[in-house]
């Protein structure tokens, strides 16, 4: 049994402009000790997917239209707020992108860590403090005792992100959800934080869902990858498959549009023309069809199903249909070049 199983998740938001269909039919699994990366552009629905897992979709504007979220076989969407609180922060916890707005500015950081312990583990105040100091040390911040007494504004961005991770890890969760944890950080600090997450996964066998738009980060830290576009999961595969045998034209576009540092020649970048779909009125067919070089008539009319292209690799593209014309795949083109 996998740790987390998301099945046909659909999330809508009602706004004055109409209903936004933010997540449409997303299904995936996370195994024990596995890092699953979700990649996609802004508006692709990656953050909303994990917010649904954390029970952060607020009614009445937000609505989970259908789907199941099974955590250790238990349906999270059926639980009461009270039952959910027993799981959130303890078994599933989350690190947000912007550490400045996610930490309480009027509360000492040490208190913010021990708060979690006091709530979930029923320890004494002294014990909670000792554990919190230990956590600060564990995430690599020197002078833990002094740091315990300081406020968020006294920390740098990278340090605050470590504090966020310390809070998330305080109860030894089974699943850590990290929503763009390094996007606001400089590369040298990003390397430190990614190293820290790597260590947690190895030492504690914690599963991680990592949201990012940086394919470099994906290559270095993920086991499995989910590519999202226009609220849909367009491709799901192992990290090796993503880079060696990508199937969906959107994934090809993404891989082509980033300059490779190890690339010697300065050839022109190949951007994906056009812009992402309007989620108020998403295209009738495949969300990527209007920007896709290979779009066929059917792509404009019908949403493709997920085709299995290899073991553990599925792609939502009609090019995999047996009736589709043969085109040179991405890897074949790469080899020819």
């Amino acid at each position, binding site marked *: 049994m996998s740790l987390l199983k998301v099945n046909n998740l659909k999330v809508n938001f009602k706004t004055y402009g109409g209903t936004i269909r933010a997540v449409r039919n997303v299904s995936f699994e996370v195994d024990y000790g596995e890092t699953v990366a979700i990649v996609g552009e802004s508006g692709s629905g990656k953050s909303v997917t994990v917010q649904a897992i954390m029970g952060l979709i607020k009614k009445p504007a937000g609505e989970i239209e259908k789907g199941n979220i099974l955590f250790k076989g238990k349906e999270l969407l059926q639980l009461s707020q009270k039952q959910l609180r027993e799981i959130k922060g303890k078994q599933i916890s989350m690190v947000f992108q912007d550490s400045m707005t996610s930490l309480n500015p009027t509360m000492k950081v040490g208190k913010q860590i021990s708060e979690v312990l006091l709530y979930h583990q029923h320890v004494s105040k002294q014990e909670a403090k000792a554990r919190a100091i230990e956590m600060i040390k564990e995430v690599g911040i020197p002078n833990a005792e002094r740091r315990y007494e300081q406020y968020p504004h006294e920390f740098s961005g990278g340090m605050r992100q470590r504090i966020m991770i310390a809070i998330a890890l305080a109860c030894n969760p089974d699943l850590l959800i990290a929503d763009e944890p390094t996007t606001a950080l400089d590369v040298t600090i990003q*390397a430190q934080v990614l190293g820290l997450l790597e260590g947690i996964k190895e030492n504690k066998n914690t599963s991680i869902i990592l949201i990012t738009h940086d394919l470099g980060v994906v290559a270095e830290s993920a086991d499995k990858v989910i590519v999202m576009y226009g609220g849909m999961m367009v491709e799901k595969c192992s990290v090796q498959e993503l*880079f060696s045998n990508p199937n969906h034209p959107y994934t090809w576009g993404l891989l082509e549009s980033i300059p490779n540092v190890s690339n010697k020649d300065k050839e022109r970048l190949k951007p994906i023309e056009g812009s992402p779909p309007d989620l108020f009125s998403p295209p009738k067919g495949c969300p990527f069809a209007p920007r896709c070089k290979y779009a066929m008539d059917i792509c404009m009319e019908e949403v493709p199903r997920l085709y299995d292209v290899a073991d553990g690799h599925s792609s939502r593209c009609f090019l995999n249909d047996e009736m589709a014309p043969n085109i040179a795949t991405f890897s074949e083109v790469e080899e020819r070049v």
Partner: protein
Amino acid sequence: MNQEIIKTTNVKKHYAIGKQQVVRSVDGISIDIYQGETFGLVGESGSGKSTFGKTIAGLTNPTDGSVYYEGNNVNNLSKKERHRINREIQIIFQDPQASLNPRMQVGDIIAEGIDAHGLAKGKARKERIYDLLERVGLNPDVVKRYPHEFSGGQRQRIGIARTLAVQPKFIVADEPISALDVSIQAQVLNLLNDLKDSEDLTYLFIAHDLSMVKHISDRIGVMYLGNMMELARSEQLFDNPKHPYTQALLSAIPVPDPTLSKRDRIVLQGEPPSPVNPPSGCKFRTRCPHAMEICSLEAPMWKEIHADHWTACHLYS
């Protein structure tokens, strides 16, 4: 080539905070930018790269040192000449949302510079606006629309059209693509590259995304805490970085290739010190894996160790 368009000599920009303290944002930089090149400027947040860009563009006067544009000291000009140089040096800002007036129509935003410098009137002015919109890949029908009706990438194109309207020679692009999505970044980068050739431009391209900078730049300068650490041709810098900071910075870039991922990475310890109270001697010494005794005593000289490859590090003196 190699005719310099910008020359800075020991440029410093300090900001006073409170009575006693001074932030040394830019602390003595001497470089040349050549006509027709793209000069990439990289560094972490707080390294002073944007301040340096603003100083070069004349948005702020240096505390010490001088900036020369085509041989003229830009801080010491007559009003008339200042006006001319203001037209020839332009900036593209990072956040297209914040840098476009939300209450102005796109056509008027673009025309502001044309009017201020009296470059065209009436029909010619109108045609010029249409032409600019087409050149940046927007439909000329959009002149009457407002900035909020556009996506981030399109707004950045409007910003670029506004910049081009006054026919500049030198453009400071301050993180022009950082706020955009990956698939849009490549579009804007290609546009900037095409315009450089068709309009005969020189760029100072400021960014923290090293792979993008490598792609667009001819030469790259690396800044740390207000100082230039290394400067070289871009292939040279990536293939053979000399300064320990550049080496660490390059090794920290995540590479989109899972077969390479388990490689030796130089992970720097700690974080950059405050520019209010920078370390003595070499500013990088507190995080440098090769720090020696001399590094705390003496600031290293900025010197050319190979042809067109400059660095400031005691390892090479």
